[in-house]
């Protein structure tokens, strides 16, 4: 019987093709400083990933328009190289390696989400190329003593801090609290940080439930909230889950005195999807497009927001601001270091301290920055800041009325 004699030949051909296929190298651009990133442009988290791509692009364009980066006597332009990791962690690790070793990028910008940052930070550490990322807030990323990873999201454990401060001043004060959280790295960190804060503030934790990431059915949890008559509900999860949570709360007529969500509320997409059912929802953001946040390149945060909206057609939220700040932090560090040598820029990054459209950027020993969260609430069509670092900003709409009384 004739065996498949073609196969060995094909194997040899495939081995060679595979070897050659991955060897072609991109052209290196002279005089440009290339920043590289692998971002979720397709796949389930693409709708948040795009904030990073757009923010990186806008910041790079703006800095180039203003003349570029001055290092010593030379002026350099910035260039951006972005890959789509298709929301696949393994692919993102490979793409970062490719950025560093084939595309020869000078510095790295981050992906979105903690699990990606966690895996990708191993690449920056391995090649000793600084990565400034604005997409991962889990404390795990910074607990590995890595030297080349810097993060511009506020620490996960403190997300509900300002919300709890605000709750203490509410009238009538909520007594019982339900803490619900998805089972991923970021949300578990949030819950672990929130639990002791709730206890210290004297609230009774009536429910403390972990649910599966991407859960679609919240009816059992909602029925328990109703049956236990919980006053305040704090949810740490993802946008899809929170959309389902609010819609199902309405259809089961579950209306606690207040509810607050770690994500979703600041994003336009979320409020559009829920329509007027988004009303009364509390959330938090480490960033608001305020003219008080002065910025060297954009003027201030408000101008950044309008430039972003004009260019991409949707409102930026803190993800975008954080992404733009990542580019600015790298530029600042290069200028401070007076070189583009990765190790020296890394040392300069550890020392930067400047005001940006996103807030004050100064990394602690682990490489993370600390930004306070401002409590926000959807009130009618508006997104209103309620409670900030210095206490009350505007009166909350509280307690939330029953769904049929709106």
């Amino acid at each position, binding site marked *: 019987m004739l065996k498949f004699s073609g196969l060995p030949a094909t194997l040899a051909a495939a081995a060679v093709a595979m070897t050659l296929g991955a060897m072609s190298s991109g052209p290196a651009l002279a005089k440009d400083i290339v920043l590289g990133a692998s971002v979720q442009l*397709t*796949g*389930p*988290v*693409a*709708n948040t990933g*795009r904030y990073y791509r757009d923010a990186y692009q806008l910041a790079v364009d703006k800095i180039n328009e203003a003349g570029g980066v001055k290092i010593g006597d030379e002026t350099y332009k910035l260039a951006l190289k972005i890959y789509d990791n298709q929301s696949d962690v393994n692919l993102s690790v490979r793409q970062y390696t490719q950025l560093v070793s084939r595309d020869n990028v000078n510095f790295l910008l981050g992906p979105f989400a903690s699990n990606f940052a966690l895996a990708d930070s191993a690449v920056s550490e391995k090649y000793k190329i600084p990565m400034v990322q604005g997409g991962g807030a889990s404390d795990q990323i910074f607990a590995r003593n890595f030297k080349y990873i810097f993060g511009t999201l506020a620490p996960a454990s403190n997300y509900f801090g300002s919300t709890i401060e605000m709750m203490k001043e509410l009238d009538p004060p909520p007594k019982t609290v339900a803490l619900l959280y998805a*089972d991923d790295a970021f949300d578990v960190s949030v819950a672990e940080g929130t639990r002791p804060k709730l206890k210290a503030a004297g609230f009774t934790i009536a429910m403390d*439930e*972990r*649910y*599966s990431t*991407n*859960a*679609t*059915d919240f*009816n*059992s*949890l909602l*029925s*328990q909230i*109703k*049956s236990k008559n919980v006053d305040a509900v704090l949810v740490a999860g993802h*946008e*899809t889950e929170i*959309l*389902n949570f609010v*819609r*199902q709360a*309405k*259809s*089961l*007529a579950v209306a606690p005195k207040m509810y607050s969500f770690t994500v979703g509320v600041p994003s336009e*997409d*979320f409020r559009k*999807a*829920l*329509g007027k*059912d988004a009303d009364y929802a509390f959330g938090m953001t480490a960033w608001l497009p305020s003219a008080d946040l002065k910025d060297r390149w954009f003027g201030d945060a408000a101008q950044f927001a309008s430039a972003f909206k004009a260019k991409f057609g949707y409102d930026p939220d803190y993800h975008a601001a954080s992404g733009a700040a990542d580019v600015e932090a790298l530029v600042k560090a290069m200028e401070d270091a007076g070189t583009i040598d990765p190790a020296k820029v890394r040392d300069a990054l550890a020392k930067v301290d400047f005001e940006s459209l996103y807030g004050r950027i100064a990394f602690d020993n682990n490489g993370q920055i600390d930004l306070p969260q401002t409590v926000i609430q959807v009130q009618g069509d508006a997104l209103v800041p309620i409670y900030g670092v210095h206490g009350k900003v505007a009166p909350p709409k509280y307690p939330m009325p029953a*769904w049929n009384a709106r």
Partner: protein
Amino acid sequence: MDLLGQVLINGILLGGLYAMMALGLALVWGVLNIVNLAHGAFIMLGAYVSLYLFTYAHIDPFLGLPITAAVMFAIGYGVQRGILNLIVRAPMFNTLLITFGLEVVLTYLAQLAFSADFRTINPTYAGDSIVLGPVVLPLARLMAFGVAIALTVGMWLFLLHTRLGRAIRATAQNLVAARLYGVEPRHLYAVTFGIGIALAGAAGGLYGTVSQINPYIGAGLTAKSFAISIIGGLDNPLGVIVGGLFLGILESLTALYIGPTYADVASFGVLVLVLIVRPTGLLGKAA
């Protein structure tokens, strides 16, 4: 006690939706022996059709279901006639692979066309509910439940009592027997797949009124649909009602008594158990 009653109601209503999701999959699998890994992607497409009818033509999602179903029937007919018919007699792996490939293609086309934004079909009454003593019945879920049961029973009657229905059932037994009904097999296959996809599309329309939709919901819905059809059994369209209700109630009770992270352990664990102990499903004829 009120809590248990409410959770049971939630489970039953969820079960109706589940039944609807699985109906098309069970039909295509049972009759054509095609395990359609793209089933969830078709549900997703149906949800977007309903969404666009609602947003741009202001057609109520429930009243628009026939239109959604018709559009999806056309797509399903075309896919079977143009692609799947070409490999019906190839080794079994191939249908799994090709429908997986279709799923990937449909998902990405959906993202290109609709973006990755999360959307909802939100008619004014979507959040309304009927209060019955201590329990609350969400209106949209109740309506979805009604439609699901009606369509499933309708499907059953169609297969039993119409000429086309009998031809389709005959196909499940034997391709030659199907010819006796005077229907060309290529057409019959395409019609059957089209009906399956139309049902998936209708399920998508219902799904969009109670849950959020985005291009990536398909894979999870396919897995659920498998569980439901197997638990119910493929011999009888009413099986999906049994499978759907069983799974809906099981998941709700698991979330209540054990914890929300165990709902998937329960549903897929039961699926494995049913397969091992009674592979023809709870309603199926004993093996």
